[in-house]
């Protein structure tokens, strides 16, 4: 896993290979292509007849889970904002998860269940097969995909967070293809090319179980792979141990989700018991992941803030601006301040400045002086643009107001009736107008409340459509 690619990184550019012919020299590229084609063939063989029987349901499943996947891509890209990875590598990770891992897991899971039937009892297999097969076959196959990403572009793994991001993309590809195949199975069980089973699968697997699924498991495994790749100063025992430990944690999370644990509670408490157990399991998995993610993001931020702070140059980045780069919330608050001050133009200028600052920090970390020199013109243009709209310090400082809190609470009223959407939106318009007239900052909770209320209203709309489609 310590494959070094000899190509010297070019400051200011994030291309992994200088050209396609250069890429074609590496064995990993060809093995990746071959395995992807084989995976697609296996999936077409397995699900081709089901697609031919229910083309309408297949199209709906593809559309719904593509939208679902796009939301996850947006979230992962936000996590990865400081040092965005190349898009084609994201696509490679998605392809591995969606076609290589899922196709081979299909074969391995079937065989493993058959082995379990032979060596245990039917009742054991009924209860535990999903908890054993899924984590064992699928987590290993997905983690091999993360290793393949390392082989394709070792230079792109610069922090543990990078491994998390690539792992998340491998997991997301797997998750969405699996969701589509589950939809096809549900339609086949219903016996007709109906759309109801697809919507039901979307609600259950996409909305109820989507947050704590393969994307999270593989992100954890990816952290372990990245650690093993990056910490070459540590012993092999340490590096492999951490990578296997991360894989074991991903396996455990998957096992917990698939296991019949607390099944007796669902027996006694019915539907609410099932939902409660799902929620407890899901929050345990998601909570563990978010705690780890916090530390991974902190680690990456500190690695980039250091070079910026060392410059002591407020034209490059003020102390407040460096602090604002820390997370998506603080970056958003700095842009919000700019929007309140100078509208969408100022918002865009601050966003461009933040991008330029992050790019400069990344290039300084990776290429030192040469990186600084390569990125400086981009930063100077962005700084000039921000200065033009009258902003000297694009900070994330913000007031906390009673109106902001009231608006935030009122957003939840949309869950009762979508008509209440008007309240947070009204507070937002009023708050921004007032801040502009008094040349003050506005509470960012006004914006958060409005966004939350819109999401709730959208969820209400989706559930209404799902109810109508399912029950007529």
């Amino acid at each position: 896993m310590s494959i070094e690619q000899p190509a010297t990184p070019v400051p200011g550019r994030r291309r992994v290979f200088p050209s396609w012919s250069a890429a074609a020299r590496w064995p990993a590229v060809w093995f990746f292509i071959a395995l992807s084609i084989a995976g697609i063939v296996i999936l077409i063989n397995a699900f081709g007849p089901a697609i031919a029987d229910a083309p309408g349901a297949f199209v709906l499943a593809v559309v719904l889970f593509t939208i679902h996947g796009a939301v996850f891509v947006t979230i992962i890209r936000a996590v990865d904002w400081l040092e965005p990875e190349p898009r084609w590598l994201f696509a490679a990770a998605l392809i591995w998860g969606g076609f290589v891992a899922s196709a081979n897991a299909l074969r391995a899971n079937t065989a493993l269940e058959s082995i379990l039937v032979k060596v245990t009892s039917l009742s054991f297999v009924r209860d535990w097969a999903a908890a054993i097969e899924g984590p064992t076959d699928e987590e290993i196959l997905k983690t091999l995909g993360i290793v393949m990403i390392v082989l394709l572009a070792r230079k792109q793994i610069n922090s543990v967070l990078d491994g998390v991001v690539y792992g998340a993309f491998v997991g997301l590809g797997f998750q969405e293809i699996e969701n589509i195949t589950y939809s096809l199975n549900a339609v086949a069980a219903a016996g007709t090319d109906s759309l109801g089973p697809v919507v039901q699968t979307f609600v259950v697997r996409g909305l109820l179980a989507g947050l704590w699924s393969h994307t999270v498991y593989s992100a954890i495994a990816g952290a372990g792979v990245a650690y093993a790749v990056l910490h070459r100063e540590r012993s092999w025992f340490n590096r492999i141990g951490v990578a296997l430990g991360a894989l074991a944690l991903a396996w455990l999370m998957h096992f917990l989700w698939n296991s019949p644990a607390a099944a007796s509670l669902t027996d006694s408490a019915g539907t609410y018991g099932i939902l409660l157990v799902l929620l407890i399991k899901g929050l345990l998995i998601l909570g563990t992941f978010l705690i780890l993610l916090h530390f991974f993001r902190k680690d990456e931020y500190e690695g980039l803030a250091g070079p910026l702070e060392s410059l002591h140059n407020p034209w490059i980045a003020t102390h407040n601006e460096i602090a604002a780069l820390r997370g998506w919330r603080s970056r958003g608050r700095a842009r919000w301040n700019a929007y309140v001050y100078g509208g969408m133009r100022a918002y865009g200028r601050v966003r461009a400045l933040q991008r330029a600052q992050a790019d400069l920090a990344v290039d300084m970390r990776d290429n030192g002086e040469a990186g600084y020199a390569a990125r400086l013109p981009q930063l100077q243009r962005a700084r000039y643009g921000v200065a033009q709209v009258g902003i000297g310090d694009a900070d994330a400082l913000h007031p906390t107001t009673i109106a902001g809190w009231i608006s935030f609470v009122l957003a939840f009223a949309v869950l009762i009736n979508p008509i209440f959407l008007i309240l947070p939106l009204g507070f937002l318009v009023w708050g921004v107008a007032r801040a502009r007239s008094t040349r003050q900052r506005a509470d960012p909770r006004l914006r958060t409340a409005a966004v939350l209320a819109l999401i709730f209203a959208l969820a209400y709309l989706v559930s209404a459509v799902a109810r109508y489609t399912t029950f007529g």
Partner: protein
Amino acid sequence: MIADNVLMAATKAWRRNLAGSLAVVAGVLALSLGVPAIDGALSNTTVSTTAPLEFASNASVVPPPDASVVADQTSPSQGVVTLAVDGVRYRLTAESFPGTLQQLADRIRAEVQNVAGIQAISPDQAVTSNSGIPGLQATYVGENRTGRYTVYLQSGTGVTAVVDGNDAGVTAHRAALETSVRTVTIDQTA
């Protein structure tokens, strides 16, 4: 000299890339081909012909003599078990079914009719399991092939039992298979 060093480094990196790639491919193949190979090397298990076999959480059957579980056509989580008796296939499926007994019978009849080579299917006849569950049964014939399906429905759970094989095999084991089909139970409390 510098060019030689770069070339050496590139060659070393290429070899390591190849080794790493082969390791990944080996891992994928171990799961995709190795696990099925292990499965193929293990023989199917025979089952008790006296104790009921729970093939779903709420359904059981007493298998016929000399029956073994065909593991790769069995999915306990989906309430499906396939038994083999001298080459005769005996498949039982338990599922939640909201319709009537006749609708359940019509569905399996349609599936059988779609199988290539099926020449005739008898009308459905009423049967009752040993535990008193009402059911329907029909026999079908094809080229050098015969079979029988039986469906039971109780409290929203439908059980479908399909016996299928060549003429000689099914004839030799007809009585034992029929006895087994009548031992199907559906647990109403599950």
